[in-house]
């Protein structure tokens, strides 16, 4: 073996040694569980006795289960309304904060702070804040003569209430959009102004296209988080009233850890994995077609 080849081999060996904690963790805590979960999904398994092979039974039961469809409906409802709403609001705030306003730092801080409040605290706070009788929201609504809904206690209003709660945390996305806006070269705006483009035209021909990689990132993160959302619902409604907030992740938790149907819950988890992948591929395709990625390094 040549000297160069020998030193290359040595380098690779030492490198792998440095990677080894992660490689072991990948095998034990990620790869094995994924495969085991797929296997469990074809079994009846309580977690106590050993799994019994059941073929496709879990999946067949799943597609016949009205609660499965209900949880998909609820999850998609929250995602399809919640994610675009969050993007529009956080882009809007970022645009406002990207103008030459005073107290910029203070405003940015005030908008950002709610996004770092622990999920448990946020959930408890909003449960109390939206209390139809003793909370301030309905007090204000009543004063200005608007209807006072039952919020989390009313199946028709529980999902909007959850969306309202999540809107309170858009500060994180706003900060990312703000950085995206500050990365847009000012020459583009100057050139457009010379060409006589108005404010609205500049927004749609420069700002939004230049922002599209950031929008893509935030939408993908939004989908991932929204499909997995658990804590707020678990604490605020427990899935009720009348299963109107039974979201997918809560349903998995219940089947696995409350009803001890771990095979069934694993089948649900695999459906979630497939749904998430399809949604992300769809979003990437959509942005690939309409987004602008010219100036962005792919890595």
């Amino acid at each position, binding site marked *: 073996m040549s000297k160069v080849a020998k030193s290359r081999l040595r*380098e690779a060996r030492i*490198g792998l040694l*440095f*990677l080894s904690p992660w*490689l*072991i*963790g990948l095998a034990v*805590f*990620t790869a*094995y*569980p*994924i495969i*085991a*979960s797929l296997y469990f999904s074809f079994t009846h398994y309580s*977690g106590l006795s050993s799994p019994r092979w059941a073929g496709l039974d879990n999946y067949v039961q799943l597609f016949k289960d009205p609660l499965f469809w209900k949880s998909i409906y609820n999850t998609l409802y929250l995602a399809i309304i919640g994610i675009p709403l969050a993007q529009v609001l956080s882009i809007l705030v970022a645009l*406002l*904060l990207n103008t030459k*306003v005073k107290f910029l730092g203070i*405003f940015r801080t*005030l*908008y950002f*702070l709610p996004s*770092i*409040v*622990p*999920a*448990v*605290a946020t959930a*408890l*706070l*909003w449960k*109390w*804040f939206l209390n139809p*009788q*003793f909370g*301030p929201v309905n*007090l204000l609504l009543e004063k200005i003569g608007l209807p006072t809904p039952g919020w989390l206690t009313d199946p028709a209003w529980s999902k909007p209430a959850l969306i309202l709660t999540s809107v309170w945390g858009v500060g994180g996305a706003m*900060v*990312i959009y*703000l*950085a995206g806006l500050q*990365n847009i070269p000012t020459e583009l705006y100057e050139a457009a102004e010379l060409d006589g483009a108005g404010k609205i035209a500049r927004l749609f021909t420069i700002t939004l296209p230049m922002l599209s990689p*950031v929008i893509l*990132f935030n939408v993908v993160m939004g989908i*991932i988080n929204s499909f997995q959302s658990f804590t707020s619902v*678990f*604490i605020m409604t427990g899935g009720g009233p009348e299963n109107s907030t039974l979201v997918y*992740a809560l349903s*998995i*938790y219940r089947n*696995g*850890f409350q009803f001890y149907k*771990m095979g069934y*819950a694993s089948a649900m*988890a*695999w459906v*979630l*994995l497939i749904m*998430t992948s399809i949604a*992300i591929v769809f979003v990437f395709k959509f942005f690939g077609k309409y987004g602008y990625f010219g100036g962005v390094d792919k890595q």
Partner: protein
Amino acid sequence: MKKRSLGKTWIYLLLIAGAVFFMIPFFWMFSTSLKSYDDVFAFPPVWWPSEVLWSNYADLLVELPFLRYTLNTVIVTGMTLLGFMLSSSVVAFGFSYFRIPGKKVLFRILLVTLMIPPQVTMIPQFVLFNKLGWVGTFLPLIVPTFFGGAFSIFLLKQFFDTVPREFSDAAKLDGANEWKIFLKVYLPLSKPALATSALFIFIWTWTDFLNPLIYLNDDRMYTLSIGLQQLSTSRTTAWPQLMGGSVLMTLPIIVLFFLAQKTFIQGIQVGGIKS
């Protein structure tokens, strides 16, 4: 000129309206934590307690095992920080410094693991830890962190990539091996990235709910998030204590934010822009 200042007025009005929307819940959380039960269940609701009860906070610490929950959370968060920082920096150095066949593929796999829903791995992990007899202890929350966290590895690797090769070549001439180069050249140069990574690990662990919910089943082992949630189901009307607990749980994060504002904002933006 006049038109422009009118636009400015609108911008300020919108910004102030937004700030009010974001701040009122905070205010409500704090004011409730100081209320008596009479004020909490007053109709119509009152914004500020008729009598300010700081003793609600004393109740939390004396009557409820809040100190215990805080101590548990500090232990879990501290060990998680130790585990993730040690392992992730070593692995990130491995990804950044060495030529390893198949490294690119491995790094892709690392990024993909960031997108896998925890629900997929949750059940087999539980079965595994149950067989080891670890359920009900902190071990399932702590041990996996010593095998690296994908986000921290990604963040640190991106930073290590910017360290000039001349620095490590110079150290090599002085007889330093790879481990020395990692400790003496890369780590000291990467303080901002290490701080960002530590900050995010702290927040995730401090606020984590799902993992403690699955693995902790004894009141004496609860972390703050589980303790608060349990309190909310056992004493459904204890809103002053629940809001006081929420304030106390949120406070360290807010203090950290004001101490390390730049690290915070940059961390979120780097995570958002560069990936």
